[in-house]
């Protein structure tokens, strides 16, 4: 059977942690994404500001999330993303997908992707496209 109706809740049943690693206090992007993911049906948890990679990985594993979205605008993304991924692996959370958003210079995207990040999003992307990319990565 074919249906043309758009799936309004493509992320229903998915649990996603939105986190702010490091000291950066710009949380608008994180909140906008959190609201968009919630609108798409996901169960969204937000850490609040200034969290360490250890803390974020701990929450991700304890809350049994499918994905972690890291929001960084301070230029410290390479170090903090790598450290968060290391902490996830250490806690048997290597299967949790990691997405990164914020002020991420284009030349750093390959480095992040090579480190195992599942997607890098910048402010000029359509919110629906961001959600669609996450849906594609998380699967049904």
């Amino acid at each position, binding site marked *: 059977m074919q249906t043309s109706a758009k799936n309004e809740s493509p992320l229903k049943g998915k649990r996603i942690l939105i986190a702010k690693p490091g000291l950066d206090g710009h949380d608008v992007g994180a909140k906008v994404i959190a609201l968009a993911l919630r609108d798409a049906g996901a169960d969204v948890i937000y850490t609040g500001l200034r969290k360490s990679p250890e803390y974020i990985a701990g929450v991700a594993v304890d809350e049994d999330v499918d994905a972690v979205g890291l929001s960084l605008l301070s230029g410290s993304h390479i170090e903090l993303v790598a450290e968060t991924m290391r902490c996830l692996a250490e806690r048997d959370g290597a299967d949790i997908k990691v997405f990164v958003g914020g002020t991420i210079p284009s030349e750093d995207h390959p480095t992040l992707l090579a480190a195992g990040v599942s997607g890098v*999003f910048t402010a000029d992307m359509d919110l629906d*496209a961001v959600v669609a990319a996450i849906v594609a990565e998380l699967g049904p």
Partner: protein
Amino acid sequence: MSTSAGARAPSDQIAGAARAEPPEPSTSTPSGIEVPVVVTREMAGDRDIGAPGEAPFTRGIFPDGFRGRLWTIRQYSGFGTAEDTNERYRFLLEGGQTGLSVALDLPTQCGLDPTDSMAKPEVGKVGVSLSNLAEAEILFDGIDLSKISTSFTINGTAAIIYAMYCAVADKQGVPRAKLTGTIQNDILKEYVARGTWIFPVRPSMRLIADSILFSNDQTPRFNPISIAGAHVRDAGATAVEELAYTLANGIAYVEELLRRGGDVTKFARRLSFFFYVHMDFFEEVCKFRAGRRLWAKLLEERFGVTDEKARHFRFGVVCGGSSLTAAQPYNNIVRVGTETMAAVLGGAQSIFTCAYDEAFQIPTEFSAEIALRTQQIIAHESGIARTVDPLGGSYYVEWLTDRMEEETRAIIEELDDYGGVTKAIEDGYLQMRIAERARDRKRAVDKGETVIVGQNFFRREEQTDDFGEVFRLDPKAAEKVREKYDAVLARRDEAAVARSLAALEEAAARDDVNVMPFLVDCCHAYATVGEMVATLKRRWGEFQEPIRL
């Protein structure tokens, strides 16, 4: 396979990438004020709005506008080590900049020393690291603090950085009374938008009152607070909300200072404000005219202030911020130029123009110079600063100024009804409102209701968004900072440090003592920012962020 967004978002993921048709012209301002096709004399109120320098100051706080004194050209700048930043300051001053504006790194803003584990990846990244007096001495080396005004974008640790500035002046032999400049010192908006809070709301308000009262006495020409709407605006608020939240915060500070026994006629003269200028030209001009008038009225209505100078609404602005794009980045030069004209026509006292690449990196000398020249071209070629409030009396401008004043007042009253701005912040109510606004703003861009040239309209399929020179931070900067930090710790008098910190802790425990002189003593002893903050935290605790989604 990975579904990365790629270097920049590929064009098929950007809303409106395929939009070839120009957008429909909008009939309302971004704050939602519906604008008539034409405004007549009757609609504009047909009344005398008074002269510049005359309360309630619709046309400006000075009778001679920029003829008396040009606005201060003040470019926000700082990165890496104090040595790197000192070099950039000299470059800007030689280029004709007239005031300094210090960008501090996140560890300094959050009260952590460069050796702290949370601080390590962030040292020197978004600003200069300033962990103790020795660094401040390097930062201002060869710069005469009696001649240049310095602005610090600092909040959570504002009192400490201000104490450090007083200590540098002491060391340079500059009388404190000669110091001019500004510390942002506006913690309320940090809880809402910018996020560098440290202590809970109550002790933070006490610390701010301490610094303002100390400043009125010790550095009477210095602005000990710059009540800032800028960050709330950049986070999602409209121009009207930016103004309303800022004035509401201003009222909260006045109330706190009055509780502390401050003389409103005295301290109100040193309150200053700070805003973003975005692209809707007349709304920005009228925001400043409305703000100036409303602040003067609010001080009289709520606090009985009649002294004219105490009701002066003095403000600085930043042109750029979230109105800048990574797409076709050179377009940002035009945006900043337009915004600067709005700031000048609105009567700003100081202007910071963002560099075209500032939305995504620390500006290079090349981009920083264009930003500086933008102001100089407007100041010295355009002639728009020749007469005071040249738009005054325009039917549209007076009509829009009235509308914005009304709408701003309505939001302030709404916050009063909620129980005040402090309560709205502690509950997380304001934070949530801003986040929803940000989502709406983003959706409006995605849907093409808001036009961003080169991004969601008039975009070429093959455009590369190349911005030229990439700024490279010295990769050794953080290491150098930590080495210098260790050296200071090794050579300072530990007994003096311990004494000064103990005295600070005792002062912090008592509500009737001003902690500022104790902070200055700590700075002179080369106690670090991290040590002072840790000491105060022991007495005051930490803010617990309300998380509402």
